């Protein structure tokens, strides 16, 4: 079978969706997609170096820079899921009743309740920082003891939050798939600003002639097809829908 | 001595085996409480192995060793000078003080006594040298001092004069005779027949791993009972 390499972020891989899609892709296209699960920054670097044929990430600004630098041909939005705020089941900051994501974070800051941040410049981390800024808690205000930057992937950060029993921002998929929940519970979700858009970016064959742009194109066609739509929208974990397909047909 | 003597040692049918080959034995003998025994025999006959066996350093495949006191106690009152002296990676002085220190003598006393002993064996000048740089003869002197410093009740020596010069050999014999006169039981292997004649009270002649002949020294040298011992004394082929 044909093979291509796709760099994805940990949060996507942790969702388990890949295990549903890849066998179908293989069946439909005879294409074996090899996943490289790395940090967002690293995924973009792998694409820029031509070491993978396409990337699937969720960090809009970085994606646009990637295209602008000529590393990718274009950016295709595929689907989105959402971020959720996780915290101690007792919810000491009372974010469960917050009116918005910014309000929830504001309450955490006010209560000075321990919060674990990915701290790794990933898509999730960037989203979290923008939420804090929206809540009026600037970078300086976050340089405090209760705000812990752990510099790790989603799973490791969740482990840390579980170990310390703190609040954390996670994507829903990683949270649902996460096995070491401890005392943590999903406390707040639903604000539209928490939507998390995934995009597919094929690597530019003009810059890296060896990349399998034809395979990348076939995969893109498949990912934006109704077949993918049915699989993505139909993927459920613990009875919850995780992703919403939103590719332009 | 206040302690009951560890001797005589009674050995019954003791055998040392390595890889299925018998190196020594079966040997039965008794080591009386006093005396100076010289062990002789051709190279590879098993003298060293026999001495090590008596000292409790060889696993006995068969047979028994019985001291007058429990094994653990007996071990404490023996000393051994190995055929190839073992130099610890320390100064000569520390090498000699070591047996005292491990048996509880305060470091300072031990060093002082070690210095005395180094002087006796003629190594006073080399006290601070690293033992591993000593010359062949100096090593043997050190080993002798180290063995005697604890005033053992029985002393095994395995060719202790092989690398000594004439004068050192004479001095060694004086020290040994003094120790023997002081009550130390001595069992010593040597190839030097002259020395054997000078020192021996009795002789064990080891041949092919067995105690081929044992006799009082004068009798052994004057009229050995076995053909092999006679040949050995003449430096002849012992077949």
């Amino acid at each position, binding site marked *: 079978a044909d093979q291509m390499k796709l760099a994805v972020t940990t949060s996507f891989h942790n969702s388990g969706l890949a295990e549903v899609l890849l066998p179908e892709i293989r069946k439909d296209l005879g294409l074996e997609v*090899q996943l490289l699960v790395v940090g967002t920054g690293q995924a973009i670097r792998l694409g820029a170096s031509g070491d993978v044929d396409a990337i699937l990430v969720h960090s809009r600004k970085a994606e646009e820079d990637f295209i602008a630098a000529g590393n990718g041909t274009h950016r295709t939005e595929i689907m989105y899921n959402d971020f959720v705020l996780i915290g101690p089941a007792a919810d000491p900051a009372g974010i469960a009743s917050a009116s918005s994501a910014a309000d929830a974070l504001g309450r955490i800051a006010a209560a000075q309740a321990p919060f674990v941040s990915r701290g790794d410049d990933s898509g999730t981390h960037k989203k979290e920082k923008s939420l804090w800024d929206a809540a009026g808690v600037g970078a300086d205000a976050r340089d405090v003891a209760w705000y812990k930057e752990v510099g790790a992937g989603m799973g490791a950060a969740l482990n840390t939050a579980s170990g310390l029993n703190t609040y954390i921002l996670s994507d829903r998929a990683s949270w649902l798939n996460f*096995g070491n929940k401890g005392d943590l519970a999903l406390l707040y979700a639903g604000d539209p600003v928490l939507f998390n858009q995934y995009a597919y970016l094929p690597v530019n064959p003009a810059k890296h002639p060896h990349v399998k742009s034809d395979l990348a194109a076939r995969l893109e066609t498949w990912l934006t097809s109704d077949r993918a739509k049915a699989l993505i929208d139909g993927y459920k974990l613990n009875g919850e829908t995780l992703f919403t397909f939103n590719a332009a047909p | 001595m206040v302690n009951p003597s560890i001797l005589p040692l009674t050995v019954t049918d003791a055998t040392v085996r390595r890889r299925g080959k018998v190196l020594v034995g079966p040997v039965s003998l008794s080591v009386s409480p006093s005396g100076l025994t010289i062990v002789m025999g051709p190279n590879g006959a098993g003298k060293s192995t026999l001495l090590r066996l008596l000292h409790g350093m060889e696993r006995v495949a068969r047979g028994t060793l019985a001291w007058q006191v429990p094994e653990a106690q007996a071990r404490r009152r023996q000393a051994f000078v190995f055929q190839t002296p073992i130099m610890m990676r320390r100064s000569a002085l520390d090498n000699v003080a070591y047996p005292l220190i491990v048996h509880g003598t305060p470091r300072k006393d031990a060093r002082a006594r070690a210095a005395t002993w180094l002087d006796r064996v003629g190594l006073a000048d080399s006290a601070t040298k690293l033992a591993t740089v000593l010359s062949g003869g100096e090593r043997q002197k050190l080993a002798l001092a180290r063995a005697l410093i604890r005033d053992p009740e029985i002393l095994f020596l395995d060719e202790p004069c092989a690398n000594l010069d004439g004068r050192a050999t004479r001095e060694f014999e004086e020290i040994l005779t003094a120790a023997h006169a002081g009550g130390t039981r001595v069992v010593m292997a040597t190839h030097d027949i002259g020395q054997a004649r000078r020192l021996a009270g009795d002789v064990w002649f080891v041949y092919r791993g067995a105690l081929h002949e044992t006799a009082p020294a004068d009798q052994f040298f004057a009229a050995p009972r076995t053909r092999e011992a006679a040949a050995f004394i003449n430096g002849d082929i012992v077949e």
Partner: protein
Amino acid sequence: MNEILQGLLQAGRLIVTLDSDLIEISLRSLRVTLSAVVIASAIGLPLGCWLAVRRFRWRRFVIATLNALMGLPPVVVGLIVYLFLSRSGPFGVFGLLFTPTAMIIAQVIILTPLIASIAHQAIRELWAEYHDLLISLNTTRFQRIATLLWDGRRALLTAALAGFGRGIGEVGAIMIVGGNIDNATRVLTTAIALETGKGNFALALALGFILIGLAVLVNLGVHSLSRTEVSDRW
């Protein structure tokens, strides 16, 4: 805590059911590590001997560096190998990135200083023993090294086994250059890291126990193979 028990149980289950994924990644782990150990030993053992035999001005410095290189952070090795093998790197054309070969290369870099350093220390004593004889017999430096390698082979085995141990448990470097691609470059350690990230501690531990078991088996196997000629030494 409970997870440790579950991990043990799951390890047992995976083994008795001969889980095909498990077998595949275990074999890949072994293949990558053993290849790396063989290559690293072929370089490191003579290098260690050479350092014992040869006296030169910078010897002490080289040895200290070698010792320090034992601490080469795997991630850094992984990065450097990545940069060399990347399409934009000098060896990009060979397309080795994200293949077992790349993992072997990274492991060789990690294991060679370790093996050389342990070999050096093992052979130093033997050289002290043989020094006079081999000098007196007017041997060439090459012959001295060959003799020490041969007569010291049992101690050198320990060096190689230490390398094996280090290699089989390594994850940082092979994650970067191998990519942990399912069915292609996933090995035990990268699978463990993956499951840990998912919070599947029991499965991660199960894989960990299997890995340790594998390492014990290899060690015992090597020891008993080399046993025949040992009896007089150990």
